[in-house]
């Protein structure tokens, strides 16, 4: 690890100035991803700016429009919040499926959303891949068992590693960002970007931007929502495929639906065409198996990751059966 200067600002403005100022500055939340990248030499921060003392980034607030969760709220706080458990179950399920108890005790929601990919070519300094500014993606023609089957676009085939991202996309969440000394709110599906937009990052944050909080609208609550995560081992593992699904029904008609897939693409994969086949339809008319089989028609198998298609389809079918029946 190279050395760095450490700051503990208490205001968003001060933090933002440090992040966009002289030197390579990184925001330090829980640190569970950042420190791994530092120890493995993938990044070399010159400044570390701790977010622990910044006002406005903590707390879980319920109000008339839904819930706002500060980006510094830990995954353990989310997983053990009884209100979240009863009203937004899939978020609690995602939180508790992440990493390990020790990590969840310090890892934050913001850190989980902004964490860098786990592609082993990206994480290993011996490979100067596209994402790091090099000129090739080593997963193509390489060991690509854990790489994307969608959205790679002949470019970069990482999968987005965040489970909370998958759930929040399905729940139609919004993110609040501190940018140019103002608060900006946007749908979370616009927060994440694929390699065709900018291969060197996974979200729209620019130097100086800070993710402040996440909002989930109350329209996404009150129905059923699930998060199903396929892993190779039952703890300490990232999703090899996952599905987050939310649905609300009235008199047998589907009035609200949100579906996203994780572990299959460089961003949480919003299944918009699948949603269109469900919303406004009568539940009894839905052929879950057929819809699931079509949902990933654009999938492109790299050679070793074909099983992800099978898993994504299977878990989509099971998730839909859980939220629609």
């Amino acid at each position, binding site marked *: 690890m190279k050395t760095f200067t450490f700051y503990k600002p208490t205001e968003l403005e001060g933090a933002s100035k440090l992040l966009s100022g002289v030197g390579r500055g990184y925001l330090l939340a829980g640190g569970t991803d950042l420190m791994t990248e530092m120890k493995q030499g993938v990044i070399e921060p010159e400044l570390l700016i701790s977010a622990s003392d910044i006002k406005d980034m903590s707390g879980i607030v319920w109000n008339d429009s839904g819930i706002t969760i500060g980006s510094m709220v830990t995954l353990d706080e989310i997983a053990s919040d009884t209100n979240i458990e009863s009203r937004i179950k899939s978020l609690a399920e995602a939180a508790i499926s992440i990493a390990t108890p020790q990590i969840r005790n310090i890892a934050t929601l913001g850190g989980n959303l902004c964490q860098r990919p786990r592609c082993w070519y990206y994480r290993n300094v011996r490979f100067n891949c596209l994402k790091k500014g090099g000129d090739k993606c080593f997963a193509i023609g390489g*060991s690509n068992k854990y790489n994307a089957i969608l959205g790679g676009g002949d470019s970069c085939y990482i999968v987005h590693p965040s489970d909370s991202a998958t759930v929040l996309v399905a729940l139609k969440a919004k993110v609040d960002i501190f940018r140019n000394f103002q608060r900006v709110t946007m749908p979370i599906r616009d927060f994440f970007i694929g390699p065709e937009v900018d291969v060197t990052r996974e979200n729209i944050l620019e130097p100086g931007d800070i993710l402040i909080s996440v909002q989930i609208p109350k329209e996404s609550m009150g129905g059923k929502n699930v998060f199903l995560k396929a892993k190779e081992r039952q703890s300490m*593992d990232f999703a090899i495929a996952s599905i987050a699904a939310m649905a609300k029904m009235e008199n047998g008609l589907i009035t609200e639906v949100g579906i996203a897939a994780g572990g299959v693409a460089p961003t949480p994969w919003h299944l918009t065409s699948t949603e269109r086949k469900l919303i406004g339809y009568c539940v009894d008319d839905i052929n879950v198996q057929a819809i699931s089989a079509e949902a990933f028609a654009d999938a492109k198998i790299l050679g070793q990751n074909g099983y992800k298609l099978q898993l994504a389809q299977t878990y989509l079918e099971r998730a839909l059966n859980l939220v629609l029946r």
Partner: protein
Amino acid sequence: MVDQNAHPPSVGTSFQRVDLRDKVLGIAKYTADLSLPDMLHARVLRSPHPHANILSIDVQPALNMVGVHDILTPFNVGEGKVAPDVPILDTKVRFVGDEIAVVAAVNVYEADAAIDLIKVSYEVLPFSTNMDTSMKKGNPKIHTQGNVVNGGPIVEARGNVEEGFDQADYIVEDSFTTPGHHPASLEPRAALASWDGTRLTMWKPSRGIHADKAILASALDVNPNNITVIGPVMGGGYGSKDETRTSVLAALLSMRTGRPVKLELSREEEFLAGRRRHSTFTKIKMGVKKDGTVTAVHAKTVMDTGAYLSSGPGVVRRAGQGALYLYRCPNVKYEGQIVYTNTPTAGSYRALGAPQGHFALESLSDQVADKLSIDPLKFRLMNHVGPEGQPGERTTPKNQIIDTQPVEGGIPFSSNELRQCLILGADAIGWERRDQIQTPTGFIKRGIGMSMFIYRGGPGGQSKAKMSLDEDGFFTLNVGFMDVGEGSSTVVLQMAADTLGVLPQIVRLNSGNTDNTPQSPMTAGSTLTFSAGQAAVRAANQLAQIVIEAASEVIGLTDTEGLYITPEGVCSARGDEVNFTDLAKKSGLLKTTVSVTPGSRDYIVNSFGAHFAEIEVDIETGYVKVIKYVAAHDSGTIINPRMAESQVRGGISQMMGFTFLEDMEIDDLSGVTLNASFLEHKSPTIMEYPEIEVIFADSIDPVGPFGAKSLGETPCIAPAPTIANALYHATGVRLNHLPFTPDNVLTALRKLR
């Protein structure tokens, strides 16, 4: 002379593991926990190339750093060797991660910064990441002798396997692969070296301090009498620690700088520069008559040793033991070949080649049973090797100790309760309900599978022990072996205490320092309990005699008749007593030294067992759950039941990694190991731990100390084929390639859809 009625014996009871208290208090010291004043820290520059010649190294920019004290390169370490094919440092590098240079600096940050400044110029060579590529003609030699070790396979045979196949009504043949997974011991290896003039003291995790001392003496060209090796508590090794360059490099740096040097490997380095299991490709063929009799077995295994040979010869031999000896058969042949590749080195890992060999053999056995329409359990009951051994003629001379891994027939086993294991285990899993649990519809399928195994039973190299009665009235047993966490200290202590006739609480075990312990072989090949146990028993017997004689003098008797040892001291039939403390004070130090060459001239000493598993597989996700696991073991007398159970449960759980999760992933285009981390080399967590029932067969071995045979490695042999056979029963699909990750299971199952 030992009053057995005085107190119940310790052997057969679950005496508390002797070093556990320090471990739960957090005060047990492992190598990296140790520090010396003025200590320097070392870090290693590792090769970025899988195969290259080093043309030059410029260390000057690094040496110029204030905190850097010394740098070793292949050009300044001399000609010493750590192993026949491993120079201390070499001008050729053979895998990504191979050691090139080592820096000693005031702290790890300085050392790392220095590493970055070292400039190396390479002649990059073509390389091979798999055995096929290595074996192709014209491929560059990784070592001067060629990529196929010894130019070809070892061949072991009994009878005539071609004739055996001619006699067969059915011949079944298949091929299997196993992964080169890593033991991933929780403690990364480390070494702390310190010189006092010409005298070296080395602290390192070790399963053989005397063997390590010999390696250091040879590599450094130093008189072994000037070397002390101390083995602190070891944080897991499972056979794989430590015959790497680590300690030699630390010793050299310390010698040259005049300061103590600590070299601690990182987790990534432990994966790269440690020792993993040999990956294998096995072709195996079995011939049977219609009535189910086995007429021939022929197995060919090719194993990948990576960049260096390590213990390859022992491993490749062990991979054939099942094929040659588990099924009663007059005609068998095994060919085992070792191939170099430019990948991390393979070495010893719990049960050596036996898991690989048995995965192939026991999977094939089920296929043969299937072909015959005979129940797999029944097929094994019909054909397992019995106590009388294999048919054939003994070739080992009568007065010679018999190899624990023979090929010849005509020799009985000292004990063989494999049949009991098969029957008890089958009963415990409920084998008779096997067909009822299958589920023809739905995506959850259930199945029950089994396999059995044979393994060398314990006799190892010559073993010495010293035992004494000390002035404080305690007994000290001095042994040169190392407890590698499996509990041998405790077990040997129990045996010594019982032999003497005292409580184990008053027996101290002294091990771990070459200065005050006698020569001993490594804790390896499941020989420890047997070899050290026999030495300890003999030492205790001899000391008992010496103690009785000394007591006789102290009491003032003319002979030793009627004297016996009690937990407190020595008593006579007429009521005289002298306690151990007084006896020691009055007689001075009472001691004895023994040397034992364990083994038998009449019998093969082998351990046996049978494993059974009930599993559930989701055929749409490839996820397998182990519902219940039963392990029945014949290891003779079980000295310490609780610790023995811990070994069995631990070994099975460990091999759930081999079976379902673990492999070393090497990038073919660069030779880089992609998953050198605990996150990505996925070892089983507590969430994977299955319900395991352990059964120990009623068995007392006439040769083993207190009737005991080996146990430590045996639980690792059967899990993989047991699961493979259960999967076949559940799904009708054969999985021949480990590990059974969801993607491998789904790929195999697509045959069904």
